[in-house]
């Protein structure tokens, strides 16, 4: 704040009453400082202000406190302490700024000097408020981290929920695959029927000697059901490739002649 001019001082006197009234309102709603650290940062600037010079109150005994490891218990106590200190710092510094805004008629030094001092004090207290606010944000971040790592009920619930989602997805996939299998098996049966009854399923010429392939072709054009038997009998003592062809031919022997007729 810039040093106040004489014209401003006249109207600034009005601030005194308003600031006092506001201070009264602030004090009515202010959090009663239960525990204060002696020589804390909030009162360090103005030792006589009374902020931060009260003796520390004992920590309230926490009911239902379980046997936590020392580190966890210490950590949670430190969180409580940080919370109390930061809130106290914010309230005290804010109160002191409002108090400093009060215009006093008599000052120990000149008004300009007093104005400069008040300006500097307000800057520092405002910086303290911002620092305490940032410290509170850090505390909230630490609490979030602690919650994620150590809040077992919610971690269990999150794991259970995720497992249920994944199991539901897996069951859906398997159900659809089973339905697909049933449909595809019907189509595959028809495809196989079509394939083995078509000309592409017959033994290819390069698998047989040429006379055998020609003989089979002739047999197919004149064949009846009875002709297929001597064909099979003649094929039995034959070489390997023909043996592979025989079942295919016997499979196709039914519909085959009708197609090649």
């Amino acid at each position: 704040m810039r040093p106040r001019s004489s014209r401003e001082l006249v109207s600034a006197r009005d601030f005194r009453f308003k600031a006092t009234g506001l201070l009264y309102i602030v004090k009515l709603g202010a959090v009663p400082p239960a525990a204060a650290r002696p020589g804390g940062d909030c009162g360090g600037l103005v030792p006589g202000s009374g902020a931060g010079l009260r003796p520390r109150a004992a920590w309230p005994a926490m009911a239902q406190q379980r046997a936590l490891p020392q580190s966890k218990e210490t950590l949670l106590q430190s969180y409580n302490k940080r919370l109390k200190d930061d809130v106290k710092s914010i309230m005290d510094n804010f109160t002191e700024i409002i108090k400093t805004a009060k215009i006093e008629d008599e000052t120990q030094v000149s008004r300009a000097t007093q104005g400069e001092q008040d300006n500097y004090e307000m800057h520092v207290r405002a910086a303290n408020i911002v620092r305490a606010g940032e410290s509170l944000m850090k505390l909230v971040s630490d609490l979030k981290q602690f919650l994620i790592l150590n809040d077992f009920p919610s971690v269990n619930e999150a794991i259970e929920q995720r497992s249920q989602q994944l199991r539901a997805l897996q069951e859906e996939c398997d159900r659809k695959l089973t339905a697909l299998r049933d449909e595809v098996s019907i189509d595959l049966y028809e495809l196989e029927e079509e394939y083995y009854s078509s000309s592409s399923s017959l033994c290819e010429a390069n698998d047989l000697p040429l006379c055998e392939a020609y003989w089979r072709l002739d047999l197919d054009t004149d064949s009846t059901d009875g002709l297929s038997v001597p064909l099979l009998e003649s094929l039995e003592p034959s070489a390997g490739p023909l043996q592979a062809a025989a079942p295919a031919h016997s499979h196709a022997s039914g519909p085959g002649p009708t197609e090649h007729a």
Partner: protein
Amino acid sequence: MATYSLANERLRALEEIEREIGAILQNAGTVILELSKEKTNERLLDRQAAAFTASVQHVEAELSAQIRYLTQVATGQPHEGSSYSSRKDCQMALKRVDYARLKLSDVARTCEQMLEN
């Protein structure tokens, strides 16, 4: 996310507290700015000061409640649960679906080739 679990509710409450801390600082700044003016708006001053005080108390109460809850539920032991098994099963199911899709595409390609020939 369609459903919010307990963990997310607490985390959202903490995020709300973070926003409120920002509002606290903003209210404090507004009050001091208003005080620095020659002609102050008393009603605005009172309103902002009341909001500031109420926010500070609310933040303190909420954070105390969270710390109290953590004191009750924290055990100090690491949590050893995981959803790895169900995730692996789901992954294998998706692999099965991919494999079936590949095979079906092969069959479809074969059928098309046969039809072209």
